[in-house]
């Protein structure tokens, strides 16, 4: 079926202005139907009863505590995965070793594991009936249905994001610059701070942005381990669900539009880091 599209594409490629216009129109239509319409719905439902109700929903204590918890989850999971992403990208891109494909696949795994499974595995490990459950209970340590469980689930689903961005970038850049730095007498850390990091800066930011987006918005995995205690273990996406289930349609969409606004900010950041990245690449190519 995409054969049809591609055929159309190559026809247009030969200078048919009409085909070109049609393709652009089709792209706009697809974009509007698939992406703009859901955006519009969120905003219009949120503002149905005016700005007053909209803001009341946002400054309500439960919404604020959900926001706080979401930020905590982001603040812990993103740095952890940045360090991991750097380490993983380093060993995958700078060295050859057996089992590398397997390692890369394992790094990617959380990306395609169903979020429900991501939650389930922590219940199996840390739940009262789970492997470590009795041990934890004796020591009065609460992991699932508390903040640590939510953070763990968030870290799990965001493991691959930074590594996935850095691995191809660092593979492309090769190791000559680092080798030169070493030969000139730089220590390992000096080489990393002054040579590697500046080179991968924009890719790293891009990865961080994607990681933040996912950490902020995770629903399925967090839902399994949250316990849904209002004001205590609810993240923003869970709070949206709760409001939606409380006849509070407008408030649900108000909080949803807060998340949407955050998502749009993230897209802006992403666009900015991406454009820096491509500029960097084209500069490198010109040299």
């Amino acid at each position, binding site marked *: 079926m995409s054969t049809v599209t591609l055929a159309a594409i190559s026809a247009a490629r030969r200078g048919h202005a009409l085909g070109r216009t049609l393709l652009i129109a089709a792209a706009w239509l697809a974009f509007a139907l698939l992406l703009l319409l859901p955006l519009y719905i969120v905003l219009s439902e949120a503002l149905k009863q005016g700005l007053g109700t909209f803001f009341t929903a946002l400054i309500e204590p439960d919404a604020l505590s959900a926001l706080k918890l979401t930020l905590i989850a982001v603040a812990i999971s993103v740095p952890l995965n940045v360090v991991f992403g750097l380490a993983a990208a380093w060993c995958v891109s700078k060295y050859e070793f057996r089992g590398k494909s397997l390692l890369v696949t394992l790094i990617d795994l959380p990306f395609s594991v169903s979020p429900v499974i991501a939650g389930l595995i922590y219940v199996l490990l840390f739940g009262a*009936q*789970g492997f470590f459950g009795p041990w934890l209970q004796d020591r009065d340590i609460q992991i699932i*249905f508390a903040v640590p469980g939510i953070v763990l689930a968030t870290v799990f689903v965001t493991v691959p994001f930074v590594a996935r961005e850095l691995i191809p970038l660092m593979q492309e850049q090769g190791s000559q610059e680092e080798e030169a730095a070493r030969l000139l007498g730089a220590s390992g850390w000096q080489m990393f701070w002054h040579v590697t990091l500046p080179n991968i800066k924009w890719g790293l930011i891009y990865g961080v942005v994607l990681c933040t987006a996912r950490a902020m918005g995770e629903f399925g995995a967090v839902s399994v381990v949250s316990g849904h*205690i209002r004001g205590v273990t609810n993240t923003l996406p869970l709070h949206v669900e709760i409001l939606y289930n409380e006849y509070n349609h407008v408030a649900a969409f108000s909080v949803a539009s807060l998340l949407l606004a955050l998502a749009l900010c993230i897209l802006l950041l992403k666009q900015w880091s991406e454009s820096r990245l491509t500029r960097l690449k084209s500069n490198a190519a010109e040299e």
Partner: protein
Amino acid sequence: MSIRRFALAALAGLSLSAAVQAQTSLLNVSYDPTRELYQEYNAAFNKHWQAQGHEPVTIQQSHGGSGKQARAVIDGLKADVVTLALAGDIDELNKLGKLIPEDWQKRLPQASTPYTSTIVFLVRKGNPKQIKDWDDLVKPGVEVITPNPKTSGGARWNFLAAWAYAQQKYGSDDKAQAFVEQLYKNVPVLDTGARGSTITFVNNHIGDVLLAWENEAFLALKEQGGDQFEIVAPSLSILAEPPVAVVDKNVDKKGTRELANAYLNYLYSEEGQRIAAKNFYRPRSEKVAAEFAKQFPALKLVTIDKDFGGWKSAQPKFFNDGGVFDQIYQAK
């Protein structure tokens, strides 16, 4: 090494802060439609508790499908009290989690059920499909909204009410099964919780009739204004008994037994009963029931214990894997 120490310290800190909080907080793990009830009740209880010379307490709420909530408590959600949709779910806290004694239902009056409800029909204004009784639900072209009995407590009461009607009218289990099978063929959406079904019916305009807790139906009328929906009482329904219990293992650990007991006992007080009635639950107190008599239509009701032999026999027969509910879905 230092990371591990840091992690341990962080964990200890978090659990410590939880322990400090626990002295003045109480977690009530409840099912879906009680959100509004406990919002009001918690405020009233707090006043009552402070009037008795105690420090104010923070009462935390968690809501969801009844089975899901019981499972969370079994998996370690530190509930002080559970207020679930049916006794069968609280039984699991004893069976699977050893969190409460087997005779938990005898510890509070009225089999630990401070309020009751029943199952009624919510239809669209003017009752365009002329739905008057259970028989109208199996007619072709009628769309019935009810949640999944596997995950929702309310849905199990719905199922049993339909079953009881068909069994009494047509006289055998086989015919009752054929009847409910026909009924579930008319169900276009099967949500996981009672509240999800109400949202589907009320906000998303799916279906002709919602099988609902009476309190949930009244609440929908109140939230949406009476001009969109009507309540229809069927000729026979079931006495829905949502019980409450203190979770012994958790309150002993947290030292909240006194508070938890007081919290549940106050549900039986006149004020507690009145709040329940105001939120459309049928009160147990005869005095309060008389005050609200106009609100609740008199219905012929079967009960889970007399007509189904209690949840201990109804749950495996109808809802466990391979039970009647699975059979009617796999027959299709």
